Structures are given as structure tokens and as C-alpha cells.
């Protein structure tokens, strides 16, 4: 497919890692505006704060304050089109979800869950 509709087919689409595990959604698309050349897609973002910012700056601030509890480095998570391995219903990228920034919340909750509750394995 030569042409792609960014809003219809890329924005808010599920992102999977190289093992087909869910990584998150495409929450943002960065466009590089260039003089004399058509704009290009600089990178895509998977980040909760980015998504909330689409509703307004106020929501983004609130989300960021909350996210500070579990976010380590690497936020917002970004990837380029070069890293995309497959593009259809979902977008599959050449990344390991467990090591990627969007999983910080997952790791943080595992810490709190495993430590406190039996049976969570």
C-alpha cells in the first residue's frame, strides 16, 4: 500500500511489539514541517499524557501529575516508521514491550501487587 491515511489508519491504532504483545495505542503523531519539502512524519508517540493533551492542557497536567508516580525515563515513548514491521489492523514494531516505557505502569503495579497479594504469582 503506497498511501496511508494517518488519522484513519494510524492515530489511535493498537501498537504491538515484536512478540505480538500489546504495547499501547498511537496517542500522537509528530509532523516535521520543512521548507520547500513536504512535511514528514518524524515519529509516533505512545503515551497517556499525550492522549489526554488532545482534550486540553488541563487534562495533560493532571495526567502528568498522576503518571509521575510510576514513570521512569523514556517518556514519552516514541518510535519511527522505520521500526514498523507490519501494518494492518494493528501496528507491529520491532521493540520489546517489557522493556519499553509504556510498561512502566505495568511494572510498578506488579511491584505493588506481588509484594502485597498472594496468588498473583
Amino acid at each position, binding site marked *: 500500500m*503506497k*498511501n*496511508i*491515511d*494517518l*488519522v*484513519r489508519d494510524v*492515530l489511535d491504532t493498537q501498537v504491538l511489539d515484536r512478540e505480538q504483545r500489546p504495547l499501547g495505542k498511537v*496517542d*500522537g*503523531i*509528530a*509532523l*516535521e*514541517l*520543512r*521548507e520547500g*519539502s*513536504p*512535511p*514528514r*512524519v*518524524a515519529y509516533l508517540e505512545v503515551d497517556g499524557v*499525550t492522549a489526554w*493533551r*488532545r*482534550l486540553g492542557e488541563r487534562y495533560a497536567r493532571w495526567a502528568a501529575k498522576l503518571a509521575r508516580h510510576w514513570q521512569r525515563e523514556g517518556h514519552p515513548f516514541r518510535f*519511527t*516508521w*522505520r521500526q514498523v514491521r507490519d501494518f494492518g489492523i494493528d501496528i507491529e514494531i520491532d521493540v520489546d514491550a517489557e522493556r519499553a516505557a509504556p510498561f512502566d505502569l505495568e511494572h510498578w503495579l506488579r511491584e505493588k501487587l506481588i509484594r502485597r497479594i498472594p496468588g498473583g504469582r
Partner: protein
Amino acid sequence: MSRVIALERFIGHIVRDAEGRKLGHLHEVRVRRQGDDLVVREYVVGSAGLLERFSLAQFAREVVFIFGIGRMHGYVVPWDSLEFPEKGELRCTRRAADLQRFSAERPAGK
């Protein structure tokens, strides 16, 4: 000189033409592959505004489309004719009359 913008924040925003007339809302950004890159070919500016925020009226309108009532109108703006100013509304550098129009029975989606 290049600038990076957060495209998702402009979806659904109003676009005006060179004479200041309202063209519609930014609906779609069509890109093509160029090596490993994606470059913009054109923008689709349509008549509906669901994309920016929740709108019950827009859901209702889409439902009505299903029954074939009403059409979506809009313009196709080439990549070199849309400006993203630091402040203010999106501006098309051409006049509405000089743009390619489209009319669809069903919305292009989003």
C-alpha cells in the same frame, strides 16, 4: 528551518482559506511512503467536527449518514498549501474556489 508539531492536536481544528473563509475541519492527512519515511501528500478538510471533542450531534449525524441522508462535503488541500501557525487557526494559502472538492455519501471516517 524545520519545526515539529503535534499533529494530533490539530485534528478537527478549523481551516480557513486565503480569504479567511471557513473551509471546514481538518479530517485527514494523507501520506505516501518515501523510502523509510512517510511524507504528506495532501490534507482533507471536511464539514464535520467530531474529531476534536465528543459531540452527540456528530454521532447522530453519522447515524443519519447510514440511511443515506445527507452528504459530506470538503476540500483536498495539497501539502504545500496548508500552514500551521504558532498561534491561531490553520490557514490554507489558496482560495476555496481553487481547491479540489469532494462529496461523499458516507464520511471518510474520524
